């Protein structure tokens, strides 16, 4: 439920694995590749990670969310490699007895992931390519 993956992400499978009968809510965030960025038409993205460190930061982040919020299990999976427009780059899913904590934890997880997990995207647009450094 936590880690990097170079094959397509499957949010529904994660939800099914995550949820237990004590949970009344599952909040899911799916990040997807959009077709434009900074005025350019995006063809596709490549995601690169520092894999050993990214896996560790993802696990640490999930543990931190479970300490801070009244939630159950967490799924945190980031895709790597080439992604076409419309594909999912990241799935954050949080199961909890009640929805408020699940929403808050989900927001915390995606916002913190973007700041702390060593992953970068390279954008291939019409007419060139460029690393995106910082968001």
């Amino acid at each position, binding site marked *: 439920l936590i880690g990097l993956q170079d094959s397509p992400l499957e949010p529904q499978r994660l939800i099914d694995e995550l949820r237990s009968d004590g949970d009344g809510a599952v909040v899911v965030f799916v*990040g997807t590749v959009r077709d434009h960025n900074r005025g350019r038409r995006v063809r596709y993205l490549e*995601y*690169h*990670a*520092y894999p*050993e*460190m*990214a896996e*560790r930061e993802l696990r640490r982040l999930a543990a931190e969310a479970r300490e801070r919020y009244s939630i159950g299990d967490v799924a945190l999976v*980031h895709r790597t490699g080439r992604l076409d427009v419309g594909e999912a*780059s*990241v799935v954050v899913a949080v199961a909890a007895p009640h929805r408020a904590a699940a929403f808050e934890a989900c927001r915390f997880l*995606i916002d913190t*992931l*973007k*700041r*702390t*997990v*060593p*992953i*970068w*995207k*390279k954008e291939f647009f019409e007419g060139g390519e460029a*690393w*995106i*450094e*910082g*968001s």
Partner: protein
Amino acid sequence: MKVEVRYFAGLVDHTGRTRDSLHVADDADVRELWRELVRRYPRLGDLGYRPLVACDLEYADWEQALAGVREVAFLPPLSGG
């Protein structure tokens, strides 16, 4: 002593490599290692940002001593998600 250095994202383009193995002084810190890298790869001197640093998979600062550190990674501003 020897440290493994790893580069990611745009830093791979600037150095032309993903990793190096370097000898540094026993009392060297991250900042001194970076100075040595800028001598080797002058393009690192004008990045326009300051890389993040990780020592043995943990974020570190530029004053971190390298004694006992096996791997130092330099990370451009992150853009996951």
